[in-house]
């Protein structure tokens, strides 16, 4: 398997929307998810280009800072 990298949550938050599905291609800057924290809608942008291979935190779950929101295969 080629390298896959986790996309970490920038802050403790509720996963409000997932904007991609497993198997989708993303570029650097593609909004993968929108988190909800401190009454802000916080977009999480892909930091690498690749294919989404996992979305470990479904909508409505809580992620801690640093938890993976998505796993992207390079």
């Amino acid at each position: 398997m080629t390298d896959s990298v986790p996309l970490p949550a920038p802050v403790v938050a509720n996963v409000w929307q997932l904007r991609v599905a497993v198997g989708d291609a993303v570029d650097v800057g593609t909004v993968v998810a929108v988190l909800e924290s401190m009454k802000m809608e916080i977009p999480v942008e892909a930091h690498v280009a690749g294919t989404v291979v996992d979305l470990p935190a479904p909508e409505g779950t809580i992620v801690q800072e640093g938890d993976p929101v998505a796993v992207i295969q390079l």
Partner: protein
Amino acid sequence: MIVLECENNLMFGATMTIAPNHHALGQHHAVSHPRRTVLERREAAAQRIEPRGRRTMTAEERAVALVDRGTFTWINRQYAAKAGVVTGWGLVDGRPVVVTSQDAAIASGAIGTALADAVQSAQRFALDHGYPIVYLNDSGGARIHDGIKALHGCGGIFNLNVKATRRIPQISVILGPCAGAAAYSPALTDWTIMVRELGQMFLTGPDIVKAATGEDATAEEIGGSGMHAGTSGVAHLAVDDEEAALAAARHLLSFVPSHAGAALPGLPSIDPDPVAEARLSTVVPEKASIVFDMHDVLNGVLDRGPRLELMPGYAPSIVTMLARLDGRPVGVVANQPKARGGILDAKSSVKAARFINFCGRFGVPVLTFVDVPGFLPGTVEESRGVITHGATLLRAYAEADGVAKLTVIVRKAYGGAYIAMGSPSIGADRSWAWPASEVAVMGPGGAVGLLHRRALADADDPAALRDELAAKYREEVASPYVAADAGIVDDVILPEETRARLVGALRVMSPIVSTAS
């Protein structure tokens, strides 16, 4: 007449004539022979030792390259060079700056008794005359052979670093692996610039880490620029090579006075970027939960032209940037909604506090742009000591007296974060709010839920009632006009009026600016 062949026609011309009644022939030798010796010795000392590894410049070449061409002058030339450091002074943009440059070619730049003494001598010169000092660091730390004498010397450097804190700007540039004492001195200076993959800072390098704890890690992992400019916050800028590091140090110096109390280096005013200025009134989304890039606001208000964002890779939910307004250097502190919603937390508080503290010490006016959802609560932040660290931000504003502090509330300013972000209550001289801003103990959602719990529970349509109550709260409690009525915010202003208000205030409050050379 006696005509002497001069031994060095470079200096004297081809011949030198001396009157016959000039009594001592020996005196001719006293003039000419030492001159030859000086030049021979200088040439011998100038033998270039090819820099090792990724380095491209010798210690002397770095010091010379830092300052304006032809202005470098050695301090304690031979003494310092033999000890492994180049010390001297020169001009940067025409202003005097002292420089020390550790020489990795001599015992890896290890700090022995003589090296420490030479550095302290340069530090005292800078302190006595009120010149900034730039430390070009490339040293393995204390020289083991010198034992306690080396430690005593390192401590002496630290002591003068601290003494200089309130008097002269100090910049550290990390141009090689810097261990122990060579890493601690930068931590006592104002700003630290690292070169990627060349500079490292650590208590000890990989070998001793492995021996001490068993941890296997590379020098880059322990103390590279990624660690320190991104994760630890020990360094404040990361650049690609030595030239860029020296250019960054010069750029930083262009915003600061030579010493505390000196005039700020002024330049002609430059209007903001016209596109950014025209967009200013539409940059901030109406809906308080939608993020935007605070740089779009800053670009529409500040002078176009040179800026220097410090710690851009660390705690990015707050922006700390040296910039100019009306040609005057200013320190900008701004929440960045685009990163983590613009929250304040332990790291962003410490980042901002450090910057404000610097501005306060050197008379650089502090401009604060506020759009903050609050301090991030929860177990993680409490365990990081967010109360203590948040308090350092409050303290920084309150302590920075003697410098103009001007605050613009761009959108939200809630609770403790409102107070901490340069509110008048902790020392802002003037503050203004944009018309759509909200200033309150908490946001409408939370406040309505707390204040009207029973009414909401009993309502037929709780969502509609919640919206209605939230709108009422925005109008009657959180409105900037309430803040202006209370005399806490000076005025409610249009975004496009911001620059004129700030410029007007600075001209009155911060009049001492030297004109550009």
